[in-house]
């Protein structure tokens, strides 16, 4: 009897999971289907239609899509690199050193994420115009720090706090210099957290819409903003838009699949103090 009960609950569990999977994945599937439809069949067919690669051709080869894609990689990737270079030392300092207003500074960094983007984007727009960094890679990478830096600092700080300070002392006594200790002892230990936080920061920066919409013009245009181009005033090319969206979702999906193992553990591991 127990066995049949166990099987029943297994079926129930799996059934629920399947339902959730359909619920979660269907929009994506729908999006992929749209990419293969011609505009004429967009509203007349659901699953059975004549597949065409015209949309791909149109978007990838006949428009500037590839340039937008590269722009996105530059600004999101640049933002993450800057966040790592500045954020890891900051996290280390917050974890290891005692200085005045330490917690206030840590909170201040976190609070960058509190304000809705739309609220700060207008003043930023004026400032950017004045500084002459409107519509530049530098400007976007800079503003993306609001998105990526707090996340990275807070996750990595937890990791540093979990490493007992005696490990650094032991390495010092063993004859290592601070930089060697950092790369040989500390970096391997914070790696899961760093990778997870960096990936998440990359995805957030990649998906960011409000900042690039307001702070970039024609010379630098990330993919999220560029995708709106397919909404023309007279007609909407859903197929092309779907292609733009599908391709732009790829890097995040690929990255996430590659480091799936680190992702969940990486984010939860540092947070829970043993």
């Amino acid at each position, binding site marked *: 009897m127990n066995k049949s009960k166990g099987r029943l609950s297994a079926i129930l569990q799996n059934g629920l999971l399947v339902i959730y999977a359909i619920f979660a994945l269907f929009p994506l599937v729908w999006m992929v289907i749209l990419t293969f439809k011609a505009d004429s069949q967009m509203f007349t067919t659901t699953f059975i239609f004549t597949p065409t690669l015209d949309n791909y051709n149109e978007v990838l080869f006949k428009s500037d899509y590839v340039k937008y894609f590269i722009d996105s990689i530059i600004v999101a990737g640049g933002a993450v690199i800057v966040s790592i270079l500045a954020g890891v030392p900051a996290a280390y300092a917050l974890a290891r050193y005692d200085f005045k207003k330490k917690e206030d500074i840590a909170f201040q960094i976190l609070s960058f994420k509190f304000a809705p983007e739309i609220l700060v984007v207008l003043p930023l727009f004026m400032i950017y115009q004045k500084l002459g960094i409107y519509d530049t890679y530098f400007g976007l990478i800079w503003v993306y720090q609001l998105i990526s830096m707090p996340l990275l600092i807070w996750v990595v700080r937890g990791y540093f706090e979990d490493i*007992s300070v*005696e*490990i650094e*002392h*032991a*390495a*010092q*006594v*063993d*004859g*290592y*210099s601070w930089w*060697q200790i950092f790369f040989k*002892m500390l970096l*391997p*230990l914070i790696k899961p957290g760093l990778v997870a936080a960096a990936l998440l920061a990359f995805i957030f920066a990649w998906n960011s819409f409000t900042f690039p919409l307001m702070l970039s013009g024609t010379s630098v245009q990330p993919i999220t903003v560029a995708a709106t181009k397919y909404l023309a005033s007279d007609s909407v090319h859903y197929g092309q838009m779907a292609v733009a969206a599908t391709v732009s979702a790829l890097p995040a999906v690929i990255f996430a699949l590659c480091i799936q193992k680190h992702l969940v553990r990486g984010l939860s591991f540092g947070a829970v103090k043993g």
Partner: protein
Amino acid sequence: MARIQLEKVTKKFGNVTALNGIDLDVKDKEFFILFGPAGAGKTTMLNNIAGIQIPEEGVVKIGGEVVNQIDPAHRNTAMVFENYALYPHMNVYDNIASPLRSPLYKKDEETIKKAVDRVAKMMKIDYLLERLPSQLSNGQKQRVALGRALVREPNVFLMDEPLAHLDAKLRNAMRTELKEIQVNFETTSIYVTHDFMEAMSLGDRIAIVDHGEIVQIGTGDAIYYMPCNEFVAQLMGDPEINLIPGTLKKKENKYFFTLDEGVAEYQLPAEEDLFKKLEDSESEKVDLGLRPQHVKYSFEPMEGFLKCTVYSYESIGNKSVIIAQYKNLQIRMIAPNGVTLKLDQDIYVNFLLEHSLFFRAETKEYISRYNEAGILALEKEQEG
């Protein structure tokens, strides 16, 4: 191979003074023990020698050279940390090999392998070399930490309670082994412990540390037999020394000791040196120190025995400890095993006064003891 000196070393953490003007001179090749209660500043002292912390005042010398400005890597010390401080991402082999792979003390891989195998055998962890620290028990971790220190040939070994987390049997074995290792290595060692047995058996000399200050330095026997105050007397010895408050009275040429708690009066056995010191000290109120093995007991009333009640009785293997209560005074004594007694039953206690120590009641400082001359002679011989 180096002499370690601390001169007037003071270390503060914010408002807390962890070390207060420490003067210490550890001879070359000496096995030196820092012994004291938790929070006394023992570990801070090691950290200052290793260079992990820098003192606010004072000078640290290794081999006669001032090292205050030298970073830990260049001081060539090997340290065993109390919480092991193993590198979690490296297996046991790599952990032990790590000092030999650092840029400063670099050796070729073949030498490293030989050295690691040697200490692994010595520490009996040669079957664990492939494991990660998280897969080790505490005792094994501690042995890996010891191995990582012993793999080198440093100026000085600094050991912070390296045996604290081992089980009793292993601890005894390791204690013997450590002593032997130290003799073979001929390296200065500074060893922190709060275990009286370790301090007594391992150390050439012991420094008693309390509240960031050194209270007394001497050989184990010297400190055991002539503690400079009651705190040290209580620290050295298990079960703890009995301190019996009372009053000294001189009648003619004889000294009498009266218990504060009652009417019992004892005539002190005559000893010229002691009586002279007692006279010079001019103290009436004294605490009489008496080790538990120098208290005799009987379950029948006897002449000159003090009537007490049994407060507690615990067997500790090869012997047992009885605590008798006389009014507010508790008296510890050692009894053979297998004594049958009930709590609160009557017990009659007598003191072997010819072994007693005398402390001033107000300052808790040592005045003198029986056979002081003999003990001083012994100490001289030990220090050689």
